């Protein structure tokens, strides 16, 4: 049963926390500067777009117009950046070894002759596979270029023989929500979720433990202040900071990174408050259990930063994970918040498609808040 609460006491605690945060520039810096830095690092630094794949070329058939026309397809593509031409394998090996190239394309000297004679013309592609993901994508680009080249070749051959253009299926893709397939649009909402989770849990994780460490809690628990009053009072200032961080994230996302915001700001604030309530409560619960700042902050990082980074779908798609790990992602609240944020930013989703996520966030908030209050004991041992 929750005892009747006294607003005056709650506000006294909130006010005290505000004063303490104000007088501790480090915690204020943590709350405002860290989100900006994270947004800059992730926004500019983490690009999942793979283009301008560095390529070195050895055209052994350099005298032929055919091979040079073929290479034009690479030179004119934004997906490749030809860093140089060579005439030996030593340079190729060096370029792949020192990382100046990811791909090496070798055109054999009989390339044009084979094509003219109607037989298959071999091409050699050497790939630095140490980053397997990027290598797979880069190989895909090469395949696409070669396939297109073959199709064009086929069509012109038919035409030369007086036959019409070949029959073919014509796929026309239209990309919705992120027409430029700009990975920054995908990342920025994720960074916002991560920032709120980390800042909320990290700042609050020390706010109770600090009082135990400094001895001020022993004084406070000897007063009639009730556990929910104390927890809610501590909660308020960090709630405000969390909303400020949300605003920083949205403003930077929109105006610095050009991410569109299609949804409703009202929904954004309401759903973010739910997420924030859960994250803050989790921090306070950790703080109540740990009782030392060091342990509390480590627990907070372990239980918020790492799952949010790896298991929320922030960078790594959940559907690619092994089944057991996929199951674990259901326990990561950022997973739901992330879907909501991306939905609001890019798709302009309304509640009709976000109810499931909202329900999970409500469960998370209520559960964590309840736990935070239950786990706080007005006893020194």
């Amino acid at each position: 049963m929750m005892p009747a609460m006294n607003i005056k006491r709650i506000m006294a605690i909130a006010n005290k926390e505000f004063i303490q945060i104000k007088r501790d520039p480090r915690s204020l810096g943590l709350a405002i500067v860290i989100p900006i830095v994270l947004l800059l690092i992730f926004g500019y630094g983490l690009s999942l777009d793979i283009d301008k794949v560095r390529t070195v070329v050895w055209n052994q058939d350099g005298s032929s117009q055919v091979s040079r026309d073929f290479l034009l397809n690479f030179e004119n593509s934004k997906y490749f950046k030809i860093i140089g031409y060579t005439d030996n394998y030593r340079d190729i090996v060096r370029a792949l070894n020192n990382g100046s190239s990811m791909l090496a394309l070798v055109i054999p000297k009989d390339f044009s002759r084979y094509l003219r004679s109607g037989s298959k013309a071999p091409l050699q592609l050497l790939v630095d596979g140490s980053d397997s993901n990027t290598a797979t994508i880069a190989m895909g680009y090469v395949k696409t270029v070669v396939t297109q080249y073959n199709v064009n070749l086929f069509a012109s051959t038919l035409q030369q023989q007086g036959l019409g253009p070949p029959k073919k299926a014509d796929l026309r893709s239209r990309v919705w929500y992120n027409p430029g397939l700009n990975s920054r649009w995908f990342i920025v909402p994720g960074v916002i979720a991560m920032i709120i989770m980390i800042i909320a849990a990290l700042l609050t994780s020390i706010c109770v433990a600090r009082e135990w460490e400094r001895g001020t809690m022993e004084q406070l628990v000897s007063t009639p202040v009730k556990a929910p009053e104390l927890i809610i009072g501590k909660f308020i200032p960090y709630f405000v900071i969390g909303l400020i961080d949300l605003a920083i994230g949205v403003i930077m996302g929109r105006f610095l990174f050009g991410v569109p915001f299609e949804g409703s700001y009202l929904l954004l604030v309401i759903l973010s408050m739910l997420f924030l309530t859960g994250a803050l409560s989790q921090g306070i619960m950790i703080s109540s259990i740990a009782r030392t700042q060091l342990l509390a902050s480590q627990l907070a990082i372990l239980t918020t930063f790492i799952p949010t980074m790896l298991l929320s779908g922030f960078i790594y798609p959940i559907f690619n994970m092994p089944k057991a790990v996929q199951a674990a992602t259901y326990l990561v609240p950022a997973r739901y918040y992330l879907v909501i944020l991306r939905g609001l930013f890019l798709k302009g989703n309304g509640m009709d498609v976000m109810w499931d996520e909202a329900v999970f966030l409500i469960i998370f908030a209520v559960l964590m808040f309840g736990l935070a209050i239950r786990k706080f004991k007005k006893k020194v041992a």
Partner: protein
Amino acid sequence: MSVIKSVNLTRKFGSLTAVNGLNLDIPEGEIFGLVGPDGAGKTTTMRLLTGILEPTGGEAWVYNKHVVKEAEPLKENIAYMSQRFGLYEDLTVLENINFYADIYCVSGKQRSDKIEQLLGFSGLIPFKKRLAGKLSGGMKQKLGLACALIHTPKVLFLDEPTNGVDPVSRRDFWKILYDLLKEKVTILYSTSYLDEAERCRRVGLIHKGSLLNCDTPDNIKSQYNTKTLEQAFIKIINEYESGHK
């Protein structure tokens, strides 16, 4: 009427017995000195009686409230000053006092009168806007007492409040305590200074968790035929140690 009463109050931490079968009976308006060496169990006793630590055995009541079953109502009537400075060093003197006034829901004219009175007798008026962490040791303790008295408690628990406080501040501190006793406030005062113990109405000598003796300072001295409390206590502890060999 007994204000602090404990029956067989015991607290164990694992195999260590910090407080062992403590029986106290302290009437209203008395200042009772809890004396003993470091680690004797004074702080644990204070924590048990203020409801912030649960006993592993026995029972206790403070101002007719059971320390376990009625721990929260109990806290309305008491004030506790922990051994370690328990106020916020990054808040000013006045902010600390206002904070505790809010926590105890002291409001209106009663509040402003009380704050004025507390700042006055503690000599903290010139330091109102100073951060608590920047006060001297004696000033800090007086601020602690001021915050503890904001709600006019009936029972005061002071855990070694004058440790490391200069003699002048200590004398000021005791002056405040004597005034409180006139208003029938009951005080449990723990100390390892025997000159302070002499000032208490009765003292209890606690050693290794057990209360070895409990009487007025004069009675203890005459009982053991010594000039000072210190000599009497040494005799009592030696007696206890030889009986436990």
